[in-house]
């Protein structure tokens, strides 16, 4: 099962290397990782997607907790949350195909951001499933280039997983 971990870290040099290095040397696989600043200038948030069973995720989480720069980890998989990925796709498009492709883009609420003589470039945001579907829809025309961010996620409603909120860094013991 895929787990989405929302991880707050110190915005200090080397923190991404620490996290990435930990995954590599412990033999954990990262499905996707997105990192950026938060509302606090000295805190960054990593959204990490990892696939594995309960025991595996527990070990990943515990090892992450050991990093001094990791402030808080929330496994939001079973919570209500909103998540988004962003993709940019450059697709082969003869002038005669443009309307047809624009129509597909419209279905996915993708926007054309660039136009070449024989290509069109789209940006599209959404959850992983939608992005996958958009990619598949354009594949028959010939995808020239594709770039995709990792997933970012946020809890719904008034709940939030900030530095000072609720469940602290200490893991609950089973």
């Amino acid at each position, binding site marked *: 099962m895929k787990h989405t971990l929302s991880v707050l*870290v*110190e915005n200090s*040099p*080397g923190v991404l*290397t*620490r996290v990435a*290095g*930990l995954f590599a*040397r412990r033999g954990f696989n990262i499905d996707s990782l997105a990192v950026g600043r938060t509302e606090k200038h000295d805190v960054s948030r990593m959204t990490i997607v990892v696939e594995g069973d309960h*025991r595996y995720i*527990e*070990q990943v989480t*515990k*090892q992450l*907790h*050991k*990093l*001094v*720069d*990791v*402030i*808080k980890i929330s496994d939001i998989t079973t919570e209500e949350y909103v998540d988004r990925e962003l993709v940019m796709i450059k697709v082969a498009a003869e002038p005669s195909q443009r309307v047809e492709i624009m129509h597909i883009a419209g279905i996915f609420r993708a926007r054309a951001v660039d136009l070449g003589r024989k290509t069109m470039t789209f940006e599209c945001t959404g959850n992983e499933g939608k992005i996958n579907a958009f990619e598949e829809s354009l594949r028959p025309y010939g995808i020239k280039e594709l770039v995709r961010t990792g997933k970012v996620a946020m809890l719904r409603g008034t709940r939030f997983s900030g*530095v000072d909120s609720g469940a602290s*860094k*200490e*893991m609950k*013991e*089973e």
Partner: protein
Amino acid sequence: MEMTVAEALIRCLEKENVEWVFGYPGGAILPVYDALYHSSQIRHVLVRHEQGAVHAADGYARVTGKVGVCMATSGPGATNLVTGIANAYMDSIPLVLFTGQVSTGQIGTDAFQEVDIFGITMPIVKHNYLVKDPQKLPAIVKNAFHIASTGRPGPVLIDLPRDVAESRISFKYPSTVRLRGYKPTYRGHPSKIHEIAELIRKSERPVIYAGGGILGANAAAELLQLAETISAPVTNTFMGLASFPGDHPLFLGMLGLHGTRYANMAVTECDLLIALGARFDDRVTMKIKAFAPKATVIHIDIDPAEIGKIVSVSVPLVGDVKLILKDLLPLLEKTDRSRWLARIAELKKQYPLTYDREGGLKPQYVIEKLCEFTRGEAVVATDVGQHQMWVAQYYRFKRPRTLVSSGGLGCMGFGLPAAVGACLGSRGQPVILVTGDGSIQMTMQELGTMMEQELPIKILILNNHTLGMVRQLQEFYCEGRYMSVNFRFHPDFVRLAEAYGIPAYTITSEEEVLSLLPAALAEPGPALVNCLVPREENVSPMVLAGRGIDEAIDCS
């Protein structure tokens, strides 16, 4: 008060009550050594190789329980520390290490003696810092000592660029530590402690499996009290040795790969395994499915990540083992387990730890006599290999923090420099280094440091002219094809010692052990004893790869 960062660093060390710094100077760390020149509190031990510095700081930390401090310059100075840092990390030893670095403007330009030691050491430190902002140095040092010595201890490295070391700051040592991402759990959960007491009450055949965490938490007295209260036999991991008196009737010795057969059988037969500050290392468990198959497992550890990492446990409890045992002991009543203890006595009789005295001077005999002559009270440093296992089996340690040895990393060359640090840390108590002819040659340059510091270390080389442990592996796993294990050349260890001004002896027989070993131990200063032992002697018993610990074989 205004001063340079280098001077501030030394002031920080003084505030942390550092008495010894082990190190080796160089260009990038020049400002720090210049500041050290003016300190009247801190004494510096000049080693002969940076690896010696980090192992010495490690040995010092193991016997004192204090943080070991080590310094080296940038580039090769820093990379020479790497093995020692990994060693301290694997055995959870508190160290703070300072490395010089090229100036911030030169970082990333492949400058002379530049390496990214911050990046290199990331997987083998508890935490590390590259100091870029001079103002932050005091807080970083404060944090480093806190992180290294609390929770599960470990090494912390601070990389200090030369221009940062030279810049001026107004010095104020922080009184508190602010680390929002680091808050170890010390108190055990009361409901879990009650649950554990209940499991112990119900158990008929409990075994206590105690590791290095007992020593880290200074919980040897509580361990003894627990064992005696509930009449449970105690087995130690290699790292846990010396946390329980070796001559105690409840002691089973070490378990695992080269553990006693009765310890391994007791674990196999027990219905309750109480793991205290131990991590179910592969050299302990061997085949995991066959490890303590009948037991309910209680696992108490300061590091949450160790719990459930290798085996699933019935009752996990995160916290400081000393505090937890203090909370647990009042809940337990004195229990008589004469049936179980009778079974243990039977196992001890059925599977005794023995060796064959015939066929030359046996290394086990040397260790037995060493233990007898020192009454099990000496600080014993070892290297890595067969001699290390014979110490584990035949030296009956009586006091905590008297075994100084590389467990997790299995780092040959650790012994001599670690003995230097241990000797400085143990203030005149006898320190004995048991080493092998392979290991000693990895770091024997530190004989110079030992002599310079006038340390009365007694060195016992169990010399079998081979890399005995690898030879033993080749005997069992390579059908006796001995590849690159037998030394065709050795220096004359006695004359080598004499070149350093160390009195030296060669021992070739049991009679000489009885006459010369006490003489060497009685030397006021250092001494070296070269014990010629048979090449073919194996460490026995032994559990073959892929087998359970109940299947140990006799391979003497």
